[in-house]
């Protein structure tokens, strides 16, 4: 008789656990692979003008608390109507999740990227400044904070703020204020080299969709 009652209690408890497991969701698990699109704003950079960028990324989650992000960005900036700066980043970051708050998952992020920058001074119908275009490849490190917000178990919105520091050569140019607006000087002889590391803040909003669970 007691055995029967115990069995009944065990079965009831089991069915409750099964139900509870159905309701509780784990949004992030190791082995997940997701694809995403991103838009990036670059602020507090060399020129004091914001840039708008577009890009994409994929993420492979290695462990429960560690994710990796592999990204590419293309950012353009209007240099006060005196020229254009184009930046391309391709790199990777490691994300660390200290704690998950159901749909909100904040994280710390740090990584490395390769960077291509090109500055094109303004040409007019009377002046061709193609010869003044300057460009360079460099390497950079970035780090910051971010958070995912899960709208469904597969889809998340992610916002991150990262400080990027360029380790390679500077792209030497100056925006000079004149009586008729700004002039973009890319002549290296006339520019005093800046000894500081080039850096800027990247604010990124991305949309991500989990497409596979690898392990």
């Amino acid at each position, binding site marked *: 008789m007691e055995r029967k*009652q115990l069995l*009944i*209690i065990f*079965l*009831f408890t089991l*069915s*409750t656990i*099964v*139900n509870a497991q*159905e309701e509780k969701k784990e949004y992030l698990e190791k082995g997940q692979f997701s694809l995403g*699109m*991103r*838009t990036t704003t670059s602020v507090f950079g060399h020129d004091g003008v914001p840039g*708008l*960028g*577009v*890009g*994409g990324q994929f993420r492979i989650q290695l462990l429960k608390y560690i994710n990796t992000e592999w990204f590419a960005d*293309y*950012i*353009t*900036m*209007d240099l006060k*109507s005196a020229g*254009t700066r184009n930046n391309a980043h391709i790199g990777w970051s490691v994300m660390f999740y200290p704690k998950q708050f159901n749909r909100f998952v904040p994280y710390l992020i740090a990584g490395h990227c390769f960077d291509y920058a090109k500055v*094109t*001074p*303004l*040409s*007019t*119908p*009377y*002046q*061709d*400044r*193609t010869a003044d275009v300057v460009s360079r490849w460099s390497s950079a490190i970035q780090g910051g904070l971010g958070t995912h917000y899960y*709208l*469904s178990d*597969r*889809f998340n919105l992610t916002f991150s703020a990262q400080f990027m520091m360029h380790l390679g050569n500077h792209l030497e140019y100056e925006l000079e204020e004149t009586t008729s607006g700004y002039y973009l000087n890319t002549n290296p002889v006339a520019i005093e080299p800046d000894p500081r590391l080039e850096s800027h803040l990247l604010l990124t*909003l991305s*949309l991500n*969709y989990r497409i596979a669970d690898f392990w």
Partner: protein
Amino acid sequence: MKKIIILSLVVLGGISAFAQTDSTVAKTKRDWKIKTALSFAPGLLTEKTYSLQLQGYLGFMQQKIEWRGEAFYFLNSFGDRPRFSMNHQLYMGAFYHFTETAFQPYVGFQPGIALSQSLEYGSLNATTQELEYKKTINPVGSIAAGFDFFGEKFFFLFFETRYIFGRHKSDTYPIYLDELRFSFGLGITF
């Protein structure tokens, strides 16, 4: 009596647990759909200027989330300042549908790129001594809102409006790509 109640609870509990698993399985069998549509999309720019684009998209929808890739082919622009001779755009982003009924209002955000060419500002090519109007690729973003109305099978009707922001930058003066664009049409879903 006590035993019967306990037994009933266990059975009900078990049934509900399995019923949820079954419904999840049934849902995963067909809880997504593909949407595709083609439409004309008129747009409003500043300075009493209008544009006309051909729009096509392909969307993947699961639960209330739609993941959509979209293309706009620039046809022409009219008005006081038709500033572009080319302004094709590609977008990829996501939309959130507020309901799962036949009538589905939604909002979304899509980052993208624009392949654009100025009609106004050219730059001198010193070698050929001619004016050049360079085509460049620039990032754009788009915030959209609209609704879908699904028929019983295959077809749906949609109306959408979006605000596009970005700037055409080349080797000469920058031009805003900002535009308020509308689209209305019939799409296919399966």
